């Protein structure tokens, strides 16, 4: 019902996309849990985690599309929001280890014991509770996005300068998280997770549930993004992208619109990161690497910016290729990625979905004279 109202007046591709995501979200876990490992249709826990990871990347790509595709803000720092969400989840998972760590300290994670820390730093308080960690998953990235956006948009920093700032933010965070005395595990990050909500993170049932949660959050993220871009606010966002000063002189406070969409997008990226961490089993500062954020932009460009569905598809396709190529010919991957970006920019500037979407449009233009209004114009022209 809610989904139907959110999708009211939407384009026809939204429903099939949601159906595919939810089918995948239910079918893959079932194939993993119900079928015996000997069955040809059995999905191994490796594949469940792998595709689950792709779904998290798809949500991240969706978040980037919301700011870049619709509002023209080319963020090259969304990896930071993703990683912060991941760290918030990682902190919860670390606290769940309890006394089962190598040092058997019920309060302190292993890396703190190793560094001779005596007590838990204040910013770790509350992370033993899931609800608190879940809240921080959106609050921390959202707050960072608010602060960066507040200063940048108010000072009218746009275009490449804004992109550079977002790169600087993620780079600075990477350097900070590499430091041991930050209290986030230094360059090793956080790993060796045991339980989530009382369930073993390695167990088949937990993996299946995490997979379903990733699919459900991708679907929810899509619905929210879809509702936003199809609202009048969405029209203002596109207006800002196309002609920022025109929007300003019409009385729109452009900085507020940018801030809204930037924070929303950062929260979505944080959720993606939080679901990613228990499925891959580790979070470390390399997630903040500037190149990661740039890679996300490539997924969006490949799939088709400003289409919502495209970036999700682009994220899955590019990462599937990455998984395959880094296994088959590891040294070729970075060249393939670079080549892909150049090829898409030159030959598919609208991306995969954007190009497909443009096809029926052309047909519609040709069919136009049949419409009564256009026919009248044609007659008048004669």
């Amino acid at each position, binding site marked *: 019902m809610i989904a139907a109202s959110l999708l009211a007046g939407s384009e026809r591709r939204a429903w099939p996309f949601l159906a595919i995501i939810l089918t995948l979200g239910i079918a893959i876990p079932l194939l993993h849990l119900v079928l015996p490992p000997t069955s040809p249709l059995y999905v191994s826990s490796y594949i469940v985690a792998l595709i689950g990871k792709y779904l998290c990347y798809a949500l991240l790509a969706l978040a980037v599309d919301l700011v870049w595709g619709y509002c023209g803000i080319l963020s090259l720092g969304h990896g930071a929001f993703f990683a912060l969400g991941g760290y918030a989840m990682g902190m919860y998972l670390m606290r769940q280890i309890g006394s089962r760590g190598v040092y058997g300290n019920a309060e302190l994670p292993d890396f703190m014991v190793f560094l001779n820390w005596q007590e838990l730093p204040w910013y770790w308080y509350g992370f033993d509770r899931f609800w608190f960690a879940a809240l921080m998953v959106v609050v921390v990235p959202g707050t960072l996005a608010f602060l960066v956006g507040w200063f940048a948009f108010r000072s009218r920093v746009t275009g490449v300068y804004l992109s550079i700032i977002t790169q600087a933010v993620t780079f600075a965070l990477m350097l900070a998280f590499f430091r041991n005395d930050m209290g986030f595990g230094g360059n090793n990050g956080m790993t060796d997770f045991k339980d989530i909500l009382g369930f073993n993170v390695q167990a088949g049932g937990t993996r299946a549930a995490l997979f379903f949660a990733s699919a459900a959050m991708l679907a929810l993220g899509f619905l929210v993004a879809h509702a936003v871009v199809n609202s*009048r606010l969405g029209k203002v966002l596109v207006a800002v*992208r*196309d002609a920022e000063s025109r929007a300003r002189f019409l009385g*729109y*406070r*452009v900085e507020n619109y940018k801030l809204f969409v930037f924070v929303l997008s950062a929260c979505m990226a944080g959720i993606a990161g939080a679901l990613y961490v228990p499925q891959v089993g580790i979070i470390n500062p390399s997630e903040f690497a500037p190149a990661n954020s740039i890679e996300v932009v490539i997924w969006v460009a490949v799939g088709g910016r400003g289409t919502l569905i495209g970036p999700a598809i682009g994220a899955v396709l590019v990462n599937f290729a990455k998984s395959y190529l880094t296994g088959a010919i590891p040294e070729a991957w970075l060249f393939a990625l670079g080549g892909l970006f150049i090829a898409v920019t030159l030959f598919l500037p609208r991306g995969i979905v954007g190009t497909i979407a443009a096809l029926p449009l052309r047909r519609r233009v040709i069919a136009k004279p049949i419409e009564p209004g256009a026919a009248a114009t044609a007659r008048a022209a004669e």
Partner: protein
Amino acid sequence: MAVTSALLYLDGVTVSFDGFKALNQLSLAIDPGEMRAIIGPNGAGKTTMMDVVTGKTRPDNGEVLFGGAVDLTRLDEAAIAELGIGRKFQKPTVFESHTVADNLLLALKNPRGVWATLFASATAVESARLDRILETVRLTEQRDMLAANLSHGQKQWLEIGMLLASDPKLLLVDEPAAGMTDAETAATAALLKEINKTHTVVVVEHDMAFVRALGVKVTVLHEGSVLAEGPLAQVSADPRVIEVYLGR
């Protein structure tokens, strides 16, 4: 309280960019309901004057009052737009990936806040207003066409339509006839006269035929200040005007 009865009042406004005075002690008063044409050679300060009035540029000194009371130099673009000053750019600036109807919809006089637009839904009243504006600017046929696909002249008209939709008290129109055919220019002059029946209008224009067609009081700018003011016939006979502008 009010120091002037003028709707727009500029007094001693100076703007300099790196020592170059784009506006030099400019003083100008536009009465409510008036239509004023502003002409002048390139670099005379016409566009800078509009930038100052709409909040894009802050003057170094001088006074800019709207409605005799509101100091425009303290407000930003969005606040000035909400006060009721609409601006048409020299180069037609519309939202290219929106339809003509959506361009006008975004310009309609509605709350401009983030939450207001997030939950806004189209109403019949809005739709009726759009119909009327579309008719006025002769774009009814193009209602659902993307603005990017309009001709240059149609984009100019759409932008004027967007100004109408926001129902401003004062319209600042920068070179509306630029790049138009003679027929379109004449039609634009007629449109502006029609708009002037209910709005105060300031038109910046190069095209003398267009200014003649408007038949209104003319202000000639030169090097950032007013050189002459009066009916077109009078100012075009002024030897100083002929020297700096018309004679060239």
